[in-house]
């Protein structure tokens, strides 16, 4: 719409303003342009903003200044000049260097030149450089979307009938007919079926990511029943190992990780999401349901507490981006966070590169910027971060079962009771300690003491004497309002460099805030603490210690107490900096009586009990999740994606080009996530089911029908078998979006069972094997390589789920997992990826990965040659091999390569054994070499 108005504007202007200027005046203004304006434009602007720049592909900001129309139509930020209105002209603003756009980039022009431009614009921006040919207003968004709907992936899914084929015996099901028909039309024939030994290995790896045991292979080879294969498929689909393997596929797409690279901060609760995904695959939760759960689980009704927990955990999906939480511009950080969410939603579910439209309309796909901000508006209605210097992701307590709730309630009651007891005892003690002792003068406090009254305050702080215990004339509190807008800062005059204990005095009580952020800046740097003001301060009922730090004479030192994120009153009485050597001294009130030693030890006992209880009792379980904002709003476009550059408003919405039928209506009292999710998950969405079916095809066959699994836009590839993709999609939707049924259909096809050996025959005709005359030979993932090694050494631990790192781990630096659980359970730390998995093309956990890389690099070879893990597992495998009966060579080959050795291979092994004196060493060497060998990492 913006552009249409701009175009209209140009027309009106050229008719009225310029035409009506008297001739002489116009001549004078033209001369001014030639003398003062044109040379500057040519010298300073046109290198990047002209037809030449456009032709060289170097045009910046889509703005041209080499024609009048270019300036009037403007660039990405809108019209560059508004004739007669210098103040409204972006061009002039940018010359002034006082906004986000500052031009020219090399340095501000002289004031005289800027004044010339102001005058020129004021006088109507007379400009002889007319050109309506090369500058065209951009096509309006509506047009772009209407045209876009003709692209294959935005068209509704059709129901094609299976094509006729010549070789009628070959297809086992309709799917095969689509493949065969294409092959026949290309003059190709399908390869023979793979042998049964190959098939059982292929099925095990593709369905559960583990090799079959030798007994399982033998049983399958011996099973002559006609449905042996089908039974095997069903067994594997029902195995709990299935979810571990297929869950990992989805975790690649969901860019699942358990830390951020910034300071290696740990996502303590992300593992719950991993377990949720595995569970979904094991229980075959319909995929459209999984979509809604992951985007809006917290907004869905739940029939049980367990379900409520599941749904809450599902939304961790929205939280896992590798965000730079330290960005100081918190508005910008928030938009980057949302951008990342849109990226994973867009690529993951829709295979759309939505985030390309953040700064401008999508250059290739029919996605206008307005669509981006319509979707961003939905996510702006939820809180995912709590702002701080290093912002923190939101965690919410999980709803509990009545039994658990009872345990936690009991324990919390115990804590409360102890606290009350301590409080009562203390107040009795302090009452005893005489009324005179309750109010202290500043001079009675040891150290460099500062009263709250004289500290630097931001926002309104109320002075109070209500508690009766205070220093100076009272303490201050924040009135429990305007949270986040108030702070109080103490700056001591340190006269001697040294270590000081910092103590904070506050007025405790039940109505107080629990997590009051306090930061201490010393020569040691900045330290952030949270103080619970419900608790009576430990020192004299008045002070808590904030720790001991080094402060320098005249150095930067301060303590700031803020109200950000607090609930309840924040109170501040005083701060004192006590030299370390004096820190043991008691605070002595003038007429204060010391409590008796008996009382003191009773109190100490109570406090120790409380501390122990708080430390040892289980923590309330939390989940990484979002919180709905209290106020629901619609959106605004941010011009060129800059948060401070606010453009037109847009209501919440979804991708228009992929909307068939009515767009969703968004409720006034909710973010709109549920409607967004339901729009994505609806049967009629032309993208979602196709994208998912293609992903499953890719994971099973090694190459998608659309090879760009995460991009179904115009820059992605076209499907090799569009009708087959639609047919499978229709069936998938009819089956209620069941992943297991979809997999079952695919693996029961004849196409899936083709041999991968036919490669050389069809190569010249179809070098990429797009027509699937034979199976693609796939590589094992790093996870599968590790699991296979652990299973052949007998070390695989099938314990499932749970947090797989110490609960108190603060950063991922140098972390090494010591577990033999399946690889999917290794912590996915972005700064400390499990080495084996990383070296074998792990999905980058910061990016949506539907299609992993396949590389052959020397570090993989070095890993197999030298890593202690491989050498040790090979040794253990050798020990176990030597305990078994039968031919060890056969056994070793079957375990590692899934086949019997050739005669030549037998003799290689025999010759090697002759050179070795120690059989354990010899077999360790053989197993290591087999594991390292090329075939080990292949799925044939």
């Amino acid at each position, binding site marked *: 719409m913006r552009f249409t108005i701009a175009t209209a504007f140009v027309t009106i202007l050229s008719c009225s303003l310029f035409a009506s200027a008297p001739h002489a005046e116009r001549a004078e203004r033209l001369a001014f342009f030639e003398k003062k304006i044109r040379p500057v434009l040519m010298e300073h602007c046109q290198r990047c903003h002209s037809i030449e720049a456009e032709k060289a592909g170097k045009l910046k900001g889509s703005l041209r200044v080499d024609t009048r129309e270019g300036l009037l139509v403007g660039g990405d930020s809108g019209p560059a000049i508004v004739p007669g209105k210098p103040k409204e002209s972006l061009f002039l603003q940018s010359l002034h260097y006082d906004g986000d756009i500052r031009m020219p980039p090399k*340095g501000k022009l002289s004031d005289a030149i800027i004044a010339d431009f102001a005058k020129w614009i004021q006088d109507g921006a007379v400009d002889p450089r007319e050109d309506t040919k090369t500058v065209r207003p951009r096509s309006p968004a509506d047009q772009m979307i209407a045209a876009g709907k003709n692209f294959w992936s935005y068209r509704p899914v059709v129901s094609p009938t299976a094509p006729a084929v010549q070789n009628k015996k070959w297809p086992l099901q309709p799917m095969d007919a689509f493949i065969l028909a294409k092959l026949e039309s290309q003059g190709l024939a399908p390869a023979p079926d793979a042998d049964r030994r190959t098939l059982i290995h292929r099925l095990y790896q593709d369905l559960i990511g583990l090799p079959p045991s030798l007994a399982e292979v033998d049983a399958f080879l011996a099973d002559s029943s006609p449905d042996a294969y089908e039974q095997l498929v069903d067994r594997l689909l029902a195995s709990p190992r299935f979810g571990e393997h297929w869950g990992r596929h989805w975790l690649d797409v969901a860019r699942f990780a358990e830390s951020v690279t910034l300071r290696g901060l740990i996502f303590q609760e992300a593992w719950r999401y991993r377990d949720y995904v595995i569970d979904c695959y094991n229980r075959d939760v319909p995929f459209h349901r999984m979509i809604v759960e992951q985007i809006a689980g917290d907004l869905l009704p739940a029939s049980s507490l367990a379900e409520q927990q599941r749904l809450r955990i599902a939304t961790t999906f929205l939280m896992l981006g590798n965000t730079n939480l330290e960005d100081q*511009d918190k508005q910008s950080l928030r938009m980057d966070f949302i951008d990342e969410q849109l990226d994973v939603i867009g690529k993951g579910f829709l295979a759309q590169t939505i985030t390309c439209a953040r700064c401008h309309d999508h250059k290739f796909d029919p996605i206008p910027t307005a669509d981006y901000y319509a979707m961003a508006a939905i996510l702006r209605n939820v809180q995912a971060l709590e702002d701080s210097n290093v912002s923190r992701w939101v965690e919410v307590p999980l709803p509990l079962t009545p039994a658990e709730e009872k345990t936690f309630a009991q324990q919390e009651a115990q804590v409360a009771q102890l606290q009350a007891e301590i409080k009562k005892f203390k107040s009795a003690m302090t009452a005893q300690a005489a009324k005179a002792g309750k109010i202290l003068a500043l001079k009675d406090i040891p150290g460099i003491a500062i009263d709250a009254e004289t500290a630097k305050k931001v926002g309104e702080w109320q002075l109070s004497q209500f508690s009766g215990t205070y220093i100076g004339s009272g303490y201050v509190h924040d009135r429990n309002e305007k949270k986040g807008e108030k702070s109080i800062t103490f700056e001591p005059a340190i006269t001697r460099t040294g270590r000081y204990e910092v103590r904070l005095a506050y007025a405790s009580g039940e109505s107080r805030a629990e997590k009051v952020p306090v930061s201490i800046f010393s020569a040691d740097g900045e330290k952030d603490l949270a103080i619970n003001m419900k608790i009576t301060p430990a020192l004299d009922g008045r002070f808590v210690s904030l720790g001991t730090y080094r402060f320098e004479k005249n150095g930067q030192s301060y303590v700031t107490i803020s109200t950000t994120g607090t609930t309840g009153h924040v109170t501040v009485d005083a701060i004192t900096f006590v030299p370390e050597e004096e820190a043991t001294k008691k605070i002595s009130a003038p007429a204060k009586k010391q409590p008796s030693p008996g009382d003191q030890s009773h109190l100490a006992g109570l406090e120790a009990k409380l501390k122990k209880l708080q430390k040892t009792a289980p923590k309330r379980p939390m989940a990484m999740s979002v919180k709905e904002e209290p106020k629901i709003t619609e959106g605004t476009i941010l011009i060129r994606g800059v948060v401070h550059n606010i453009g037109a408003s847009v209501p919440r919405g979804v991708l228009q080009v992929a909307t068939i039928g009515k767009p969703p209506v968004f409720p006034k009292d909710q973010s709109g996530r549920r409607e967004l999710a339901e729009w994505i998950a609806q049967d009629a969405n032309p993208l979602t089911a196709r994208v998912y079916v293609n992903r499953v095809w890719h994971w099973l066959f090694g190459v998608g029908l659309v090879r760009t699994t995460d991009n179904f836009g115009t820059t992605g590839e076209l499907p090799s078998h569009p009708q087959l993709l639609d047919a499978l999609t229709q069936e998938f939707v009819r089956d209620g979006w069941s992943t297991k049924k979809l997999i079952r259909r695919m693996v029961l096809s004849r196409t899936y069972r083709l041999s991968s050996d036919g490669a050389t025959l069809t190569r010249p005709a179809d070098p990429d094997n797009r027509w699937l005359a034979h199976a693609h030979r796939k590589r094992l993932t790093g996870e599968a390589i590790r699991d296979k090694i652990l299973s052949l050494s007998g070390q695989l631990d099938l314990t499932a789920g749970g947090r797989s790192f110490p609960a108190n781990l603060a950063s991922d630096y140098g972390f090494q997992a010591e577990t033999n659980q399946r690889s999917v359970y290794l912590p996915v730390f972005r700064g400390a990826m499990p080495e084996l998995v990383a070296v074998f093309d792990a999905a*980058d956990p910061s990016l949506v990965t539907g299609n992993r890389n*396949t590389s052959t690099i*020397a570090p993989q070879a070095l890993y197999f040659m*030298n890593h202690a893990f491989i*050498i040790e597992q090979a040794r253990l495998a050798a020990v176990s091999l030597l305990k078994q009966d039968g031919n060890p060579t056969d056994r070793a080959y079957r375990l590692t390569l899934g086949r019997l050795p*050739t005669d030549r291979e037998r003799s290689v092994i025999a010759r090697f054994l002759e050179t070795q004196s120690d059989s354990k060493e010899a077999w360790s060497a053989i197993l290591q070499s087999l594991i390292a060998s*090329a075939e080990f990492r292949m799925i044939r």
Partner: protein
Amino acid sequence: MLTPISRRDWLTATGCGFGALALAGLAHGETTIPQRSVAPHMGPHHAPRAKRIIFLFMQGGVSHVDSYDYKPRLIQNDGQKMGFEDARVKANTGKQTSDHRVMKPLWKFAQHGQSGRWASDLFPEVAKHVDDLCFIHSLHTEGVAHGPATLFLHCGSTNFVRPSMGSWVMYGLGSENHNLPGFVSIAPSAGNGGSRNYGTAFLPAIYQGTPLGRAGGPASAARIQNLHGPLTPEQQRSRFDLLRELHQEQLRSRPGDRELEAIAESYELAWRMQANAPETLDLSRETPETQSLYGIGEKATDNFGKQCLLARRLSEAGVRYIQVTYGDSSANPAWDQHSNMPKHGDHARAVDKPISGLLTDLKRRGLLEDTIVWWGGEFGRTPYAQSNGTGRDHNPGGFTVWLAGGGFQPGIAYGATDEFGALAVENKVHMHDLHATILHQLGLDHERLTYRYAGRDFRLTDVHGHVVREILS
């Protein structure tokens, strides 16, 4: 423009035999192969002026006003409160200016060399080389905090996951040495983006940087992973020979299977790397004179001296992109003197002689001709005291880096900050421009060094960056 095709398919389609391409292919991975090019990398786009680069990363942000950007006004106005455009205040509150106490440089400035370039006595040894250095005083960047700015420095983006500069260079130029990784990061920091700062993001894995050791760790920890293992050399040899035989048999069953061949060949490469890399990494092969040139053996300079010497040995061996980090993995890394500015002196002592030694050594070996040495941090520091204390805050708005060798004009100073050193004002050079200029010297056009991912062409410089031709010789 690259089309992703599998390596073996490409080999078949182009009809080349495996043997001739084995090494090149292995060294560059196999997921993406450029068409019409034998070696799987893009460039160079034009005749390069430099073959390799050594980036000396001063993590945390060296104060430019205490080192190379001489501002007499800071001495004149020392101690006075004045209004500055503080990047942190601006980001947090939107406030354009805030009052701060001007702090004079703590080190004495003087003009040095024939060129008369200004330098303080913070780096007395490097000051002797000013006639070989090309100073940029008007650098500015994005990100006020370490995390964003460090990522911007390395990957050209404060937040988005993008390939690192070294990976881009590898993608553009490939490696000169097939027995060593082409992109090495010595003692990288785990913090502030950690591995992302030498990662490939969406570029193929082969362009990944190889970390040697860790920031703040001993130089002796600078090793290539899995180059050595628990086996004896005899065990290794016999297992390697057995593996070769097993591979021969596997290939016999599948003649012409290029994927199997490629894996077999990767072991040959690993074997050669194992044989050659230890020698390159072995500093004891250097003469005592050379070692002492780098300050090896002296307490203050031993560690960084070893790392610099290692950088020279690697560059001599044909490693394309070498980064040496002086820093650590903390939230307030090495040079981050928010308080206690004199601490800069300790860090300077640790790096001054090693860097000077590196420059001397490169020059006398004729390596400086085609090696770029880039010295700098993720940002500079403010000309005023942070919160009236004894330190300086981060300053992304204007700071100094220097470049040496590699076709940069020696002995010049380009661009300027304002009279206080707060903001770049004259001939401003953005970090994107610096990236573009360095790529240019390596023979790469930053606008053509693109990679198609998720439907669009990505660049190190995004849609920005100009080559600063004025500083090229």
